[in-house]
């Protein structure tokens, strides 16, 4: 059964290729696209079950497909690596993808790029699966760039609007900035350790580098650059909100559930390296903590439903980074999983809402959708609660609680991190319910034009179930991951309160957020308006709304200079030199051809002068 592993990425690849090259009727497209992902997820489940029931002695299994190339010591293979971490990633990715594909078959029904859409989506799934299953960093990088490409393609899917294309390019380029750092990290690792095989790298790193060594730090930081770009963390988060220009299933799949967590996966995959580089790990903490707060604050000010969710994603991935930074590895992966469920669901719900309102994105133009869209409302509510961390019931509460506890108690944790994560909980709760209240409660402002069908409802319901049930598998999850990512709670000394206390406080904060949202956005909207229109409020609002003005900053710092250089350099200054030489020749010709005056006596004079000069040369030189 394990030998079928290669089919998991191969089937989506094949179907992507089929869809890209052939013109098929819509039905066929839908079937091929969805069934291929279904097949892929079934196989991944089968493989996982095989792995669970009959675990390989080494704790992982490797499937080598073919030797990629072998040049002077660099011998990457096209090989898949299966261990508990990649199993979790694979299964979640495949399964969520399947649901979103199913949803999309209906969501995209009226679009003329139907085949193209599913070709891209299947390609994305294939690349994402390659990424999580890759045995070496080069193959991982292939998947990594592949998902970036699909993200670009899908953001700009509605290509007729140039803005979408711009957003897509921005996403691709910003993430590629990170990727460049990452690829340099690969060079560094290869130079120092002589391989790119992940397991081999980790073994050699552990044996050759001592903790805190400069190379280890440099490598970890460079790879962090890649992770930060892909996962839309500070300071490369600016692409994600714009990426919402893509169709909603894309936002759900790529920009919420799977791709943006690739950075988390990368760091978890290379956690041995980060353990060797405390400074780098501290950087991960800083990135995570800062991003989760900034994302939360920005989410609070957005009008566009999908942008709220986008900032929420940034913020939640920030939690994961925080967990990674403090060393609570399984907590990060656990949060990845629950986040995949509830955030995908939120986007799917948002998709239903937006579609039903004929493409209205502004939450201030929505309201009262509770009645016309009941399924969407209830599933959205479940997901929202999960996101905000409704205690005891929702999956999000478990995963986030774990992270909070980790932020306090783990190796690199501190009470300050715990506090900032707690602040994040408040923000999450606040913006989540702000969104829910504005969209589903209050009076209806826009007529519902369209009601979704089963293909869109079923995934929502399944995901809603998972957003709750997913939380209860925390301990088997931790156990399953333990061979790869171990976690020992309470190992720290000086812990002054227990996990239960932490959870209790979290719950309180959640309620505080919920209550504030209720006051500001349902009961007394004028309070919110007054707050926002106060002078500091206005400044802060604008600041947060514009993503901390980072777009503006990057525009001035990078985009404009490059465009300016391109504009001024268009005609290739170097060419001017050669043109000058040519011109000089022409001028010389002009001057010299004057001497050919046609006059006999001038010619005689020429001969005489030449002769005299030459005589002078022989006589006097």
């Amino acid at each position: 059964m394990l030998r079928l592993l290669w089919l998991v990425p191969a089937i989506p690849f094949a179907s992507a290729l089929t869809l890209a090259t052939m013109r098929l009727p819509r039905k066929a497209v839908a079937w091929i696209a969805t069934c291929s992902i279904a097949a892929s997820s079934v196989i991944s489940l089968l493989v996982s079950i095989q792995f669970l029931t009959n675990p390989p002695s080494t704790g992982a299994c490797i499937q080598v497909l073919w030797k990629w190339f072998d040049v002077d010591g660099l011998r990457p293979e096209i090989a898949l690596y299966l261990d508990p971490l990649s199993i979790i990633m694979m299964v979640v990715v495949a399964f969520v993808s399947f649901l979103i594909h199913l949803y999309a078959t209906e969501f995209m029904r009226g679009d003329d790029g139907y085949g193209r859409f599913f070709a891209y989506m299947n390609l994305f799934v294939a690349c994402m699966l390659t990424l999580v299953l890759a045995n070496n960093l080069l193959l991982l990088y292939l998947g990594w760039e592949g998902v970036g490409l699909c993200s670009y393609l899908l953001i700009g899917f509605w290509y007729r609007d140039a803005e979408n294309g711009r957003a897509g390019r921005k996403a691709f380029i910003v993430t590629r900035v990170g990727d460049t750092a990452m690829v340099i990290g690969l060079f560094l690792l290869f130079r120092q350790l002589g391989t790119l095989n992940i397991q081999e790298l980790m073994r050699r790193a552990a044996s050759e580098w001592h903790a805190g060594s400069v190379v280890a730090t440099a490598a970890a930081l460079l790879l962090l650059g890649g992770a930060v770009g892909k996962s839309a963390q500070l300071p490369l988060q600016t692409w994600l909100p714009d990426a919402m220009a893509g169709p909603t299933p894309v936002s759900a799949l790529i920009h919420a559930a799977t791709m943006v967590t690739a950075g988390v996966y990368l760091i978890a995959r290379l956690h041995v390296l980060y353990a060797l580089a405390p400074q780098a790990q501290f950087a991960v903490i800083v990135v995570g903590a800062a991003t989760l707060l900034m994302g939360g604050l920005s989410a609070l000010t957005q009008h566009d439903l999908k942008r709220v969710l986008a900032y929420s994603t940034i913020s939640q991935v920030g939690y994961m980074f925080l967990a990674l930074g403090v060393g609570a590895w399984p907590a990060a992966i656990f949060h990845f999983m629950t986040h995949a469920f509830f955030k995908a669901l939120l986007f799917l719900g948002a998709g239903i809402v937006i579609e039903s309102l004929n493409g209205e994105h502004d939450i201030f133009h929505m309201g009262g959708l509770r009645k016309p869209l009941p399924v969407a409302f209830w599933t959205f509510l479940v997901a929202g609660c999960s996101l905000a961390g409704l205690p005891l019931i929702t999956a999000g509460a478990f995963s986030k609680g774990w992270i909070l506890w980790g932020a306090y108690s783990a190796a690199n944790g501190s009470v300050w991190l715990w506090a900032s994560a707690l602040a994040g909980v408040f923000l999450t709760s606040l913006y989540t319910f702000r969104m829910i209240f504005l969209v589903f409660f209050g009076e209806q402002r826009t007529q519902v034009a369209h009601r979704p069908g089963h293909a869109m409802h079923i995934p929502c319901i399944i995901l809603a179930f998972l957003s709750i049930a997913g939380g209860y598998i925390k301990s088997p999850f931790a156990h399953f991951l333990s061979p790869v990512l171990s976690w020992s709670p309470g190992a720290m000394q000086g812990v002054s309160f227990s996990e239960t206390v932490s959870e209790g406080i979290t719950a309180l904060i959640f309620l505080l957020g919920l209550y504030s949202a209720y006051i500001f956005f349902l009961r007394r909207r004028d309070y919110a308006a007054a707050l926002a229109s106060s002078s500091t409020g206005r400044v802060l609002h604008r600041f947060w709304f514009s993503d901390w003005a980072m777009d503006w900053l990057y525009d001035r710092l990078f985009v404009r200079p490059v465009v300016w250089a391109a504009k001024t350099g268009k005609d290739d200054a170097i060419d001017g030199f050669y043109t000058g030489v040519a011109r000089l020749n022409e001028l010389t010709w002009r001057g010299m051809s004057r001497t050919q005056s046609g006059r006999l006596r001038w010619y005689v004079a020429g001969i005489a002068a030449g002769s005299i000069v030459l005589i002078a040369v022989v006589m006097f030189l």
Partner: protein
Amino acid sequence: MDAIRLISLSPLLIVAATSVAVLLAIAIRRNHAVAFGLTLAGLAASFCSTFFTPPSQVTQLLLIDRYALFFMGLLTAASFSITLSAYGYLAAREGNKEEFYVLLLVATLGAMALAASGHFASLFLGIEILSVALYGLIAYLRERPLPLEAGIKYLVLAGSSSAFLAFGIALVYADLGALDFAKVAQLLAAQRSMNLELLLPGTVLILTGIGFKLALAPFHMWTPDVYEGAPTPVTAFVATVSKGGMFALLLRYFSQSGANRFPRLLLVLSIIAIASMLAGNLLALFSSNVKRILAYSSIAHMGYLLVALEASSRLGTNAVAFYLVAYFAMTLGAFGVVTVLSSAQRDADQLDDYRGLFWRRPVLALVFTAMLLSLAGIPLTAGFLAKFYIVAAGVASQAWLLILILVITSTIGLFYYLRVVTALYQQPVSDVQVPEPLPRRAPGLSLVLAVLTVLLVWFGVYPTPLLRMIQSAISSIL
């Protein structure tokens, strides 16, 4: 004078006799075809005789060695092809045609004498025979303004340059007391205390005379005017036979007399070479007259030749000889094409005459292209190997400055060749007036062009036999 020596002289004698024969034929009855046929026969016989003639020295004046025979063969072959191309050209023009051949034969004789000359007297005589005949040839179409003007210019300038030459020889003679190259070489080698105040200016004056004939800068200014004005076959003659004979002499003088002993003279030669390469190539850049372009290009080519001459090694001599052969082939070919295209009214010397030639007469255009590319030194043509050997000679003697200038100027030169080539392949524009081609097809000329093209490619791809010939020829002067 014994029989052997007389036989040795046979190439010269045959040409001289032919000229007399043509004169007599004219006296009996004017007939263009007869004069033409006699001339061809004479030149062919002379050419063949160069292969059978035993080398020997005929008096002090003429050295009929392998070297001389090689160049005589080259010169007669060139005259032969010029004769062929002149027939149709003259037939379409006014006036008596027959004397043209007489003059041509005499001029050839002068050039051949130069190739064989081993003495200043024969040098002077050869030059004068050549020049005087050339005055007539250049101004042959005397009813037309341009040939006449060119003839007078050439007359005055060549006459004064002869005076420079003669005065130079006189100075050298005054110092050394010898007119014979071998003797001069001995005296120079003997390190006898020399009066350099006479010897060096004298040599420079001789160089002035020779440089004039070779159209080397700064004695080059007549070239474009004479090339433009002279009837095209005569232009071809001036460019090839006249310069070829002269260069053969220069090469012999230079390698036999050991003038390279004087660094100052080498310096003068370098200055001349550099000036020629620069002037030739730069002057031609934007000219719109094909004959003038070829004139300027010939100035540059003579400059290249000097670079190899200065190397004064076996390699350099080899390079000069090979270059001259290639230069003959391509120059004759180029002027042959100009001849073909010339109408009875005027020569096809404007660049516009060539625009779109490829689309009208593709074969002719291809031939012209081959000639031009060969002049530019592009592979598959003899010009490439020729330039290759020149550069090789320069590199071997480590004359880096000269080589660098050669490389740069020949790149500049490429520009004007390409201007012409580009014109050939331009899509035809209907309203451009093109001259009528010759009324009669010129089978002789076509044959010449075909043979020259074949030779051009043959020497460019497989020069081994030619190189063998050249090596045996130059061994007699080294």
